[in-house]
């Protein structure tokens, strides 16, 4: 809870074109992003690469929000201890967010930055959307 996350050092610059990938609510309120390819990125990125990134992110969030036996055990244990256990342990969800942050920075290094793009960790945008900045194109 107290760990500071985000991209303090390498956030996107303010005055460049930004493409937003919105949430997909068709399966409920769990975090899932639309996989429709934005046309603005047509000249930079190919569709399979983009879809791989989004699908992978969706998989990480599905894993974080999956109602599995271990998360139920975690929740029940926390309840039995009067929720005092949360002071000293990290939840399953937070571990998954760490994986997301790692995946985003890896994708940035391997795929996005060489093509003049920058992917922003959706956690820093309140899990509302994925922001892709086109670094060398000014905002319209």
């Amino acid at each position, binding site marked *: *809870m*107290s*760990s*500071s*996350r*985000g991209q*303090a050092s390498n*956030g996107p610059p*303010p005055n460049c074109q*930004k493409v*937003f990938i919105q*949430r997909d*609510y*068709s*399966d*409920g*309120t769990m975090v899932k992003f639309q996989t429709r390819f934005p046309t603005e990125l047509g000249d930079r990125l190919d569709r399979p690469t983009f879809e791989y990134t989004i699908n992978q992110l969706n998989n990480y969030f599905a894993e*974080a*929000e*999956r*109602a599995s036996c271990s*998360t*139920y055990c*975690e*929740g*029940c244990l*926390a*309840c039995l201890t*009067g*929720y*005092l256990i*949360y002071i000293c342990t990290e*939840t*399953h*969800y*937070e571990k998954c*967010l760490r994986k997301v942050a790692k995946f985003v920075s890896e994708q940035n290094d391997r795929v996005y930055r060489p093509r003049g793009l920058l992917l922003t960790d959706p*956690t*820093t*945008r*309140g*899990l*509302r*959307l994925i*922001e892709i900045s086109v670094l060398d194109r000014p*905002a319209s």
Partner: protein
Amino acid sequence: MPMCCCCCCYTAALKWELFPGRNRFCCDGRVMMAPQTGVFYVTICLIAGTSGLFFAFDCPFLAEHITPAIPVIGCLLFIFVMSALFRTSFSDPGVIPRATPDEAAYIEKQIEVPNNGNSPTYRPPPRTKEVLVRGQPVKLKYCFTCKIFRPPRASHCSLCDNCVERFDHHCPWVGNCVGRRNYRYFYAFIVSLAFLCVFILACAVTHLIMLTKDNKPFVEAVRESPGSVVVSVICFFSVWSILGLAGFHTYLTTSNQTTNEDIKGSFTSKRGQESFNPYSQGNICGNCFYVLCGPAPPSLIDRRGVVTPEYRAEQKRVSEDCVITNNKVYGTVKVVQPQDRLPLV
């Protein structure tokens, strides 16, 4: 701008200090509460006071004459109730951070309506977006304060001035909104408080009955243990509302609804249209487990994060073009929302 109630020493500014909502922060951003916390202190005083009287007047007698387990059970219940209460009150209910200026501009562009501008009393139409959730159409409303389309089940709390995920209600008794992140603590608080209240009432009444057993007049018993009478009266009057609230929230949990949705009747069929709760897990057990023990969502406002110059500049841009967009001026959104008015405790 958030209020600070205890000034701690720190070297760098943290993000809670620039938080745009009206919340009150304590302990350098670790504790987050609603702006008004007066009723919360009443709650604490009532629970702690009643329990204190119970431990002082009834426990020694009952431990001696019935079983020493009574003070132990009472103590465990009391600790659980207070821990759940503090968890509910001090944690982030699931605030959705406001849009960044770029995101707000993008959404504005999307929903811009052609202004037919003939009538002087032109008003922008309510900005909504309809999405299908498991085949059920759900309207997403645009929040003029947060500059986002509110996700399904979210609502804007006018007291705290934030959009809250899976908004249940703003509860002055716990001094916080009840939303996605603290509903399980709130439910644990209500249910354990119901148990504590019934337990204390039963013990205090037993104590008084045992004192009047040897044909002593009731006045004598009252003189011997005045605390028990006070405890019995407080518990007798509060137990009904607590039991009612616990029952109501148990019903909501089993059907995976929020108080907000129940009051608005979001899932009742109207005008012949078939309607169901698309968020339900399908059965009572599944709903209970998912709501109370499911994955614990993280706090999305990084309130202990360090403020970078870029972040400060962004916040400044947000507050500058906060009110005027499209040359129309919007005030803050006022939403009628449920508050539990049942006297708790």
